[in-house]
């Protein structure tokens, strides 16, 4: 590292002191330069839980199935066809002639090894939910495998087309997750040629990429640097040393868009939903606990001008949301009670609940300080005085599990899984994060989650969602969006699932 730095220093000195060393747009070198905001803990997609990791995962590896992000249609990727043999067994036919980046051929052994490894809890896959529905995989022949699920699991196809990607069996057995993190090997459209953990990744086009529904990569090289500060990212964009940045906050994106033809700014919705969670179950130490009173919860719902938040802060393709799930998710019925902005009514309800002068409560958040601040300002306006506390996610989560959080602003991204169970079932089934503990809701959600019948699922999700809204257990706020800013050399249309797809990028 030091030697490399010294070398570059010497090189730079040798080249010339006069040139300022700023490289201009790198279309000429066929290298796309992208910024990450977050340091990625491990490139091995099973051992990171961040959006950035998902982006790399989609570029470096392939899943068995592929969901078209625009049509939402499932297509074969490493598998060519699949079929439920019984409620809990899925049989897949694999694509032949696919090779990993290291030259190993892909076959059923790789699928079996991958699934059996990740499904084991001891393997320590970071996001257990992505894999723990699988029991085992078994080889039928070289290009046929069966995956058994633990329970009836209707969302299996969705998961197989998302987070579950296939690893080379021998290589992975040899190097393990940390080796995979440093020298990733997959079948994907791009292969990783350089990893400096947390700092830099360099991807190169996989010339031998199979005939995948992802399409063939066009740009030769992708260089990803971690730049934590958005300003610095924008500064680098200005100075021409970045070609694409994403997750740009709305205000900056707006300004960049206003700069005319210098940059292309695109906005896309994401599945992330922001919401207020209230201690309806009365687990916190507040006494009396106002949130146990439905009138107070309704008051909170009425107190906030969601439209103003969306119009002025989130902007773009964000929408006001009334459900504890993202509207496009399967089963996320939108026909529920809405609480339009009505501060007078909020005050009235508070008075009826016995709080004519409002009350004081702790208010937690872990991200989007400005949104939380704006929300707390609305709450203050109707008399709910907030003691605002911004915590690290893990700290807030810990408090949450202990049930010590009376009121919090949180978000949930559902891992881009287009199914209501990815959100509502996560929070209303009496888990440690359930702040409501409604038995009726639990019952309905159990039915919905464990059925393979779409109509029945819709019916029961709808029941649960209606009750949640009527009881005002949460105050769902809005959905998020993402801004992508590119320089004009780059051609790319982002998708709604907040995943950068290098394969669909090209030079103009």
């Amino acid at each position, binding site marked *: 590292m030091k030697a490399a730095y010294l070398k570059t220093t010497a090189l730079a000195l040798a080249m010339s002191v006069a040139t300022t060393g700023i490289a201009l747009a790198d279309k000429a070198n066929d290298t796309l330069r992208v910024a990450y905001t977050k340091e990625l803990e491990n490139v091995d997609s099973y051992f990171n839980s961040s959006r950035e990791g998902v982006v790399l995962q989609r570029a470096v590896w392939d899943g068995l199935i592929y969901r078209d992000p625009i049509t939402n249609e499932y297509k074969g990727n490493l598998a060519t066809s699949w079929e439920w043999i019984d409620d809990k067994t899925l049989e897949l036919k694999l694509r032949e002639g696919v090779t990993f980046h290291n030259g190993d051929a892909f076959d059923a052994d790789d699928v079996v090894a991958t699934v059996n490894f990740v499904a084991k809890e001891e393997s320590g896959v970071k996001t257990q939910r992505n894999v723990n529905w699988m029991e085992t995989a078994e080889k039928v022949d070289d290009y046929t495998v069966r995956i058994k699920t633990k329970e009836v699991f209707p969302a299996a196809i969705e998961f197989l087309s998302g987070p579950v990607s296939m690893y080379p069996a021998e290589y992975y057995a040899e190097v393990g997750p940390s080796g995979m993190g440093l020298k990733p090997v997959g079948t994907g459209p791009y292969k990783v040629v350089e990893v400096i953990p947390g700092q830099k990744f360099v991807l190169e086009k996989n010339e031998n990429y199979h005939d995948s529904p992802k399409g063939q990569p066009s740009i030769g090289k992708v260089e990803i640097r971690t730049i934590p500060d*958005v*300003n610095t990212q*924008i*500064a680098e964009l*200005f100075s021409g040393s970045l070609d694409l940045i994403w997750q740009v*906050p709305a*205000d*900056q994106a707006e*300004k960049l868009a206003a700069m005319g033809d210098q940059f292309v700014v695109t906005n896309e919705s994401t599945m992330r939903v922001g919401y207020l969670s209230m201690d309806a179950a009365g687990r916190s130490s507040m006494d009396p606990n106002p949130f146990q009173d439905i009138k107070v919860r309704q008051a909170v719902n009425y107190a906030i*001008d969601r439209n*103003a*938040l969306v*119009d*002025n*802060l989130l902007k773009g393709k964000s929408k006001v949301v009334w459900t504890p799930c993202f509207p496009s998710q399967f089963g996320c019925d939108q026909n529920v009670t809405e609480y339009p902005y009505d501060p007078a009514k909020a005050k009235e309800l508070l008075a009826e609940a016995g709080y004519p002068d409002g009350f004081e409560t702790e208010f937690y958040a872990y991200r989007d*300080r*400005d949104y*939380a*601040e*704006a929300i*707390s*300002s609305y709450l*203050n306006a109707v008399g709910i005085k907030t003691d*605002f*506390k*911004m*915590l*690290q996610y893990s*700290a807030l989560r810990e408090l949450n599990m202990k049930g010590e959080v009376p009121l919090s602003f949180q978000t949930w991204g559902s891992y881009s899984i287009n199914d209501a169970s990815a959100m509502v079932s996560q929070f209303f089934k009496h888990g440690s994060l359930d702040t409501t503990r409604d038995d009726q809701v639990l019952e309905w959600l159990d039915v919905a989650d464990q059925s393979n019948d779409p109509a029945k699922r819709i019916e029961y999700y709808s029941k649960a969602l209606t009750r949640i809204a009527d009881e005002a257990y949460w105050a769902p706020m809005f959905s998020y969006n993402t801004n992508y800013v590119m320089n004009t050399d780059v051609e790319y249309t982002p998708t709604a699932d907040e995943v950068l797809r290098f394969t669909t990028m090209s030079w103009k």
Partner: protein
Amino acid sequence: MALQEPIDPLLEEISGPTPRQILRKRVQGHMGLLFGAGVVLVLLVIAILAPVLAPHDPYLQDLANRMVKPVFMGGTWEHPLGTDHLGRDYLSRLIYGARVSLLIGSVAALISGVIGTAMGVAAGYFGGRVDAVVTFLINVRLAMPVVLVALAVVAILGGSLQVVIAVLGLLLWDRFAVVMRASTLQVRRREYVSAAQAIGASTPRVILSEIMPNIVNNLIVIVTLEMAHAILLEAALSFLGLGVQPPTPSWGLMVSEGKNMMLFEPWLVLIPGVVLFVLVLAINLMGDGLRDVTAPDSRS
């Protein structure tokens, strides 16, 4: 009874200026001190009178009028310094922010001052084992990376005004201890201390009435410097997102919040940054000035 005739010509000299007069004269001739103290005083008055002076409620948001430009950049007098990212009046937040900065600075300096002075004076006065322990503690404290430890603790306890003040107060006592120890050592060697001890004065009396008055000038200087230090550190913590929590208007937080739009609306960063700079500059000038005017032998 007079054994000696009063020697009058000799006493002409006693008409010389009293220490207080000398001090006044030095203060009057010290531009840095006057400027520094003046600015601090003005900001103090502003902080105290914030409810009267602020044109708007600093917490009142108006999402429809976000980041209105200040009047000198084409804004209106409705918001002379514009509004922030939630449409709150920037001038009002700046005025209330003075309260936060001065409060943090003074209370943190007070806490660390009490700790550091007690340790330093004890070490300097008693010497020996007490001194060894205090010196060791000072070394330990100096070896702890302040920003890192403060960040870690604030991250753990959650940022609130009280936590930030307490953390800074508990971390910044080193300079007090070092300087008070050195000053006490110096003063302790003076013969008037021996004289007071020989007279029979108790240890607390010797410390409070003979030593403290002679090191209090150094103490005041360190108080100002540490105040400035605490204000800057709070700003840095807030900037890194682990300081005072919103919606409390702290200047560091304002820089941090404005930072996102720095490239497009630089005034969001410049205004609180400049005010912060001026306050810290003024406190430092005041501290330097106090050191100059109270230095025992700096008769120019």
